[in-house]
């Protein structure tokens, strides 16, 4: 470690949201002249930790000390006064005000701001430009310049370089390094190994809500970091049901060709066969959300084609997709549930969706189908009068059970096990396998890599809006997947 005096010291930080424990024991130390990377796989608690450090959230336990003093960060404004300035992933500039007004709003001194903007290399910028008219990359630069102009003790950069072209990335890294050498501490939240190894001194790694390692950055550190992020192999039952091979069927159920949805999805192609579970693996924000939205009929693609059973289709509404047997289960179950309504109503809603079925409901048939889904998924229906009273796992089962009751050929599952308990997870995998065995096709995005081996036959890896790899699940161990998801090829990792 470089400096001795600790600038920021967060220890024992814990935070729960209802029954979900987002953080259990998170630690982070930043000294003067030090750049510390904060890393963790999806769902490790990074964003919650960042919010606590910056004062947007209050921790349940633990403390955040800035220069040895407890910082009373009740609001972002107070965090700023205490010397910690964050630059968030999405720009926190007001789109309908011009640059000068934005500076005034945050009490940013104008003269140093302009100096930093020049230093960072954003050209042709005028203080009377409307924020809403500026490209995203410029906004990131403005955000950073605004943060630097307020002379922070500690600067927090959250995925700073995500929207930047390469030349600007270099400028940013150089400026941040120089500023750190002057004494500033930096917390650098990122997915990008290349930048971390170039810029950072240390890396703090989070897994399952706790800090599991603080490692020095040195050549070959990627392997160690990936290992820490994955943790010990969870000893799950590996004996999975034999997968159907794609070769069994000659024609794919779903064929996606050169699909694009600007700006997030640029080129995605794959085939999904009947009886197959096709995994999708990607880091956060690589275009997987948009891909699923297009396939589900929520948004229109900007290019490419979708074929179902050899027929080209175009969906204007999810109803069109459902009519073709394609159903979508979103990752955030709050998007799919009717929280105040009963389990039966939640599951049976698609039966009433079409105009022709608005009359008297066929209660008997409906209840049979609902019971079938409830039994199949082993949904705990003790609190069935309101779905919001069920546990997270049971809620998730309801969102899947809906399509089990209706019976669809193609199921798009977006991270179905996010934030649910291990027991429920173990019920989900065999269910997915069973669906496939009965002839359904399942597209299965997951943020938890160990699930790939348990549920999928093949896996497509998406990075930056395009498919970078298709791996057979037998070869898809977590290290391979993680490297592929980070855009690292095998040769990169070795060097």
């Amino acid at each position, binding site marked *: 470690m470089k400096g001795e005096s600790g600038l920021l010291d967060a220890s024992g930080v814990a935070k729960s949201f209802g029954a979900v424990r987002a953080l259990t024991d998170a630690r982070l130390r930043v000294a003067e002249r030090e750049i510390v990377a904060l890393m963790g796989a999806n769902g490790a608690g990074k964003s919650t930790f960042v919010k606590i450090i910056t004062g947007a959230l209050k921790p349940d336990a633990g403390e955040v000390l800035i220069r040895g003093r407890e910082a009373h960060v009740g609001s972002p404004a107070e965090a700023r006064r205490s010397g910690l300035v964050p630059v968030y992933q999405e720009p926190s500039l007001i789109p309908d005000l011009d640059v000068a007004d934005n500076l005034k709003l945050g009490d940013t001194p104008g003269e140093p701001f302009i100096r930093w903007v020049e230093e960072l290399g954003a050209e042709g910028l005028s203080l009377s430009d409307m924020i809403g008219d500026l490209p995203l990359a410029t906004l990131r630069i403005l955000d950073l310049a605004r943060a630097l102009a307020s002379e922070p003790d500690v600067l927090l950069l959250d995925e700073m370089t995500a929207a930047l072209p390469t030349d600007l990335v270099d400028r940013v890294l150089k400026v941040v390094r120089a500023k750190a050498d002057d004494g500033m501490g930096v917390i650098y939240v990122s997915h990008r190994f290349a930048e971390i190894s170039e810029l950072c001194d240390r890396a703090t790694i989070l897994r399952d809500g706790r800090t599991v390692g603080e490692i020095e950055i040195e050549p070959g550190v990627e392997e160690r970091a990936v290992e820490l992020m994955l943790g010990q192999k969870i000893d799950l039952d590996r004996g999975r049901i034999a997968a159907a091979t794609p070769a069994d069927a000659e024609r794919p159920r779903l064929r996606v060709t050169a699909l694009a949805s600007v700006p997030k999805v640029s080129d995605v192609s794959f085939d999904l066969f009947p009886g197959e579970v096709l995994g999708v693996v990607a880091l956060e924000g690589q275009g997987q959300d948009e891909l699923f939205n297009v396939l589900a009929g929520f948004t229109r693609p900007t290019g490419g084609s979708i074929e179902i059973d050899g027929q080209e289709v175009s969906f204007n*509404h999810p109803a069109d997709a459902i009519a073709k047997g394609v159903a979508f289960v979103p990752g955030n179950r709050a998007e799919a549930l009717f929280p*105040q309504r009963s389990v039966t109503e939640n599951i049976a*809603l698609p039966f*009433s*969706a079409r105009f022709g079925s608005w009359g008297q*409901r066929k209660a008997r048939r409906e209840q049979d189908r609902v019971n079938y889904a409830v039994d199949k998924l082993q949904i705990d229906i003790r609190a069935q009068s309101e779905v919001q009273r069920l546990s997270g796992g049971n809620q998730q089962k309801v969102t899947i059970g809906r399509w089990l009751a209706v019976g669809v050929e193609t199921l798009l599952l977006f991270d179905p096990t996010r934030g649910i308990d291990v027991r429920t997870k173990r019920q989900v995998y065999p269910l997915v396998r069973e669906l496939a065995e009965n002839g359904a096709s399942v597209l299965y995005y997951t943020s938890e890599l160990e699930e790939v081996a348990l549920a999928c036959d093949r896996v497509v890896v998406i990075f930056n809006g395009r498919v970078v790899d298709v791996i057979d699940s037998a070869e898809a161990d977590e290290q391979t997947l993680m490297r592929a998801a980070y855009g690292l090829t095998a040769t990169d990792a070795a060097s």
Partner: protein
Amino acid sequence: MSTSTTDPPLLRAGRLFRDNPVIPLLIVLFLMIVVLEVMRPGIVTPIRAGRDGLISTFWVGNLIKFAIPLAMLAACQVLTMLTAGIDLSVGVVATVSAFVCATLSTLWGVGPAVLVALASGLVVGLANGIGVGHVRVHPLIMTLGTGLIATGCLQVYQRLVINAGSEIPGFLVMLGTGRTAGMPNGLFLFVPFAAFILWLMRYTGFGRLLFALGSNENATKLSGVRAWQVHLALYALSGLIAAIAGLLYLGMIRQTSLSLANPLLLPSVAAAVIGGTSIFGGRGSYAGAIVGALILRVLDTMLTLLQMPEGARTAFFGLIILAVTAIHVRIAGTR
């Protein structure tokens, strides 16, 4: 995420009320009648004032009679509020329907007059449905606007028929003012109507979609529901109901006016809200709204006895709506 064991008692009590609003509401109604009796002994139980009868069927009949049009308009609010909407055009629609029916009866006869009156309600409802469902204007603004236009149309129409005179169809007078066994004849219309609304909400696919739309519109989309179809049908139905309520009210008041049913608008919203229907959608009970209408009628009698001025009454109803909604937000946590 919370389970019922760890919830504070207030929250549990709130939930109990939310799930079964009718029973506590009936208790409130009963208590209010008791208070009324104390304020003016003999009004409910004539025997105490030295007259015949343990309970005054006249008073009860009157209470029910005037609650019926209010409860019918409250049905419009309950149905639209289930989808997180509201229908502020019902007062005007009821007025238009009553006025059109009374004036056309002399010109074209009763049958066509009633049909045209109902059609006018349907037209306003369809306009609301298109604005809310297709263009996605906020229902409050949309229904306010159509109400304003309908008022303008009514004024023009009045100019056209100013010399035609008016006639209130006999069957409406019979429904509105007649009594059978002490109870108002309006019940012959209202009981089947209420049964229809309860059936619609509980046993049909359409009813289920109303709850679902208000609970989570995005999730209905995921399930393949085209929301505009539901909105169009819903607001058309609401317009139709308001027109029917206007006809009944015409028979009850037996005179025509350009603002006949307008004062019923605010109480109709209040009745729905008191009856446990959430203005944020997804939760509601028509049985509750009926009791809510009765409560408002008793409250009205009380305020009259207290000689509370009109203004205080209006302000009071506004505060009731705000308070009940704020409590909804607090207790339910969700909207």
